[in-house]
């Protein structure tokens, strides 16, 4: 009985002041979108399915940054550090210990935990040192750039962990894809339908879990710290712990992105921790609407797909067009494009209703 009610109260946290969207309308929409996502592979070719898995891979990092920045108010410019650390960790683990007996999944968990541990150490250093604002951004950026520069020069054979060569700027390859042990022979999850469902399931799980986190007591404190850290502390909260908690969870998600990306392409490179890559999550999250998980998620997928499409069809004008999109949409949509599009839509609806009424 008590477990029942605690499950109930946990589920109640799926809605709350910290997340947009509530009530039957939202959840039916959610179910429809999820159902569409589930039947999508039936109608798409292998490329589209694999490509969508690739987009999903990045969404975890974006959701994590939304938690740290959008909810917690701490702009980390270096989430790519955790992405990279976890990606390399997955590579090192699986190259050394192989892919049998489901070890790739053990590696996925371990690599994510390694990223979380790294975030815990760095976060302790940051938050318990009372570093905030841009200072936090620059320290995290510096960390990711140090990792990038260091990893770039590990081309020599002396740089190896076990049998895994770090392989410098060219990047580490040859790690196995995620592999499910199976009686009749292991199932290797190439970027295809099974991997699609796996990643989608993970994404839905993480999204729902994060909704519960941000609407919980913990989430309340996190937004309180964003609004006014001094007041939050004067309500008796040890704000450093909460900031650290948010940072570790968000960074673990960046790590998860890193693992999934590495397993997806069998490749991880120091460039994925560089300046340009570090700026990308910030762009996705800011464009989508950073202070809500749903807008972050949708915005990230939209930006990723949009920019890729532009690159495919825009040739060398693609970058100019992307730039224009950012320059135009961000000032026009203060709470992100998702809400911007939403309110445009509802305004249009209202206007039409008004016209019909007349």
């Amino acid at each position, binding site marked *: 009985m008590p477990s029942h009610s605690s499950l109930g109260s946990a589920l109640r946290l799926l809605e709350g002041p910290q997340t947009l969207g509530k009530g039957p309308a939202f959840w039916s929409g959610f179910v429809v979108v999820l159902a569409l996502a589930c039947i999508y592979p039936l109608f798409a070719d292998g490329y589209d399915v694999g490509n969508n898995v690739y987009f999903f891979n990045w969404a975890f990092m974006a959701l994590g940054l939304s938690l740290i920045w959008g909810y917690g108010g701490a702009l980390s410019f270096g989430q790519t550090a955790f992405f990279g650390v976890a990606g390399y960790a997955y590579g090192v683990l699986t190259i050394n210990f192989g892919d049998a007996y489901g070890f790739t999944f053990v590696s996925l968990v371990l690599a994510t935990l390694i990223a979380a541990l790294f975030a815990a150490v760095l976060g302790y250093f940051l938050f318990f040192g009372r570093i905030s604002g841009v200072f936090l951004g620059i320290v995290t950026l510096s960390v990711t750039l140090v990792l990038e520069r260091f990893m770039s020069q590990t081309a020599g054979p002396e740089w190896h962990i076990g049998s895994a060569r770090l392989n410098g700027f060219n990047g580490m390859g040859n790690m196995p894809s995620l592999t499910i042990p199976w009686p009749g022979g292991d199932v290797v999850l190439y970027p295809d339908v099974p991997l699609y469902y796996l990643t989608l399931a993970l994404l839905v799980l993480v999204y729902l879990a994060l909704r519960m986190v941000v609407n919980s007591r913990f989430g309340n404190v996190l*937004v*309180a710290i964003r*609004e*006014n850290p*001094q*007041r939050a*502390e*004067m*309500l008796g909260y*040890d704000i450093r712990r909460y900031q650290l908690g948010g940072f570790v969870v968000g960074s673990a998600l960046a790590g998860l992105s890193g693992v999934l990306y590495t397993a997806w392409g069998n490749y991880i490179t120091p460039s994925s921790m560089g300046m340009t890559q570090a700026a990308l999550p910030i762009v996705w999250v800011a464009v989508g609407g950073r202070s809500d998980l749903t807008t972050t998620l949708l915005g990230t997928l939209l930006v990723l797909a949009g920019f890729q499409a532009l690159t495919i069809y825009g040739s060398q004008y693609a970058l100019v067009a992307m730039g224009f999109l950012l320059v135009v949409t961000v000032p026009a949509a203060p709470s992100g494009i998702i809400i911007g599009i939403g309110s445009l839509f509802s305004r249009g609806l209202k206007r039409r209703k008004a016209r019909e009424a007349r």
Partner: protein
Amino acid sequence: MAILQTRGLDKWFGGLHVTDNVDFSMQPGEVHCLIGPNGAGKSTFFRLVLGEHLPNGGAILYDGADITRAKSYQRIRRGISVKFQVPGIFKALKVRQNLQIALQDHLSGHSLNEEIDRLLEFLKLKDAAGQLAGSLSHGQKQWLEIGMAIALKPKLLLLDEPTAGMTPDETHATGEMVQALNADGVSVLAVEHDMAFVRQIAQRVTVLHFGRVFAQGTIDEIVADERVAAIYLGETGHA
């Protein structure tokens, strides 16, 4: 045993001696007012008690324990709570949520909502419950901040100019609120420039001047003190 006591408390800002060897003490259940000229160091004294600043010397004792080096949140958890001079609320959150964050550690579910409603009523913010706190008027922000401070059910409540910007009636109501809390056993230390308010609530008054304890006594003693009149109250100070 004193609820709050400081011994030889010292604070320097560069060359400025802002808190100068302050020995202060108040008893449990007391309503104590701290007054003094602008810049006397009243707010700084609060910040020292709260751990926002660390003192350069001296000790702070709360409820018998030495909290001189304790972290702010630890002091709050021990039962101190504060309304700052400049309201510090969660601007982008709704009024209701501001209160929820203050209350959620003690209450949950239905009783949490009830308590929030009760507080909103009391703070005259019922109509503004769904408004973003940042869009409240100055006075409403002060009320909200007071509400968050008392929501913690403190043993010692620090109020830095709680009635600034309030009408005489509102000031009086605030005084009654303080008295009601005090009747429930809350000790109150308030900074005020409004002598009517001080007269209404204070059981004892301490005057700070240039960071030092300048005078101490009942409100009548203080008002009668010509030195205090000279530095602080002026001609019509005897409210």
